[in-house]
């Protein structure tokens, strides 16, 4: 799946951005990319559903590995 970044620039100049399909910690790399591109600073950030899903998957995988060891 191709990852996307959606950037919305409001008429007041404030920008919102959201990553889609960037799994793992790759999405964090794009915070600095966007700040540089936009000449802006991040005022707030929050993880989206993909963050939870990725971590749940990682957690399940870890549990499977732990079970395998017993």
């Amino acid at each position, binding site marked *: 799946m191709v990852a996307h970044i959606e950037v919305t620039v409001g008429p007041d100049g404030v920008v919102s951005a959201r990553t889609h399909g960037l799994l793992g910690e790759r999405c964090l790399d794009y915070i600095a990319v966007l700040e540089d*591109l936009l000449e802006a600073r991040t005022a707030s950030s929050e993880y989206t559903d993909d963050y939870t899903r990725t971590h749940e998957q990682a957690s399940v995988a870890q549990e499977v590995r732990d079970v395998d060891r017993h």
Partner: protein
Amino acid sequence: MSVSLILVPLAISAVVAAHASRTGKDGAGRLICHVQTRMRDRALLAEALRYTGADVTVLDDALVANWEGVRATFQRDDDGVWTAHLEGFVDDQRAVEIVTAVDAGYGRLVQGAVLNRLRERAPAAGLRLESESMGADASVSLVFAVEDRV
């Protein structure tokens, strides 16, 4: 992991909206209204003032805007944010209305500058523009495909 962000361009300070910070009088007893703004960029401020029909004079340390009956002197504070000092046929409410109108024009100029910057620089950052749309509130959304460079 995916993330949602709010980013504020450096041309804008964290101040949410124009507000009257204090009111005083000059030596002749005339009212002077001081309005704190969120604007930081001199060139964009001058352009926004001209959009409102002001006659603008750019000085080394100030911008002076004249409308009919109202004069505003903009000076930077220690954080680089412009504060307006308005005098003439103006009270606190009118002063905030004038600066809010200037701020609206300033916001649109910042929006245009940010969009231009994005369109120009995104390809070099591995972002390929796939679509662009305008919302009912005049916001502009751009969707980029991420090419694996970061």
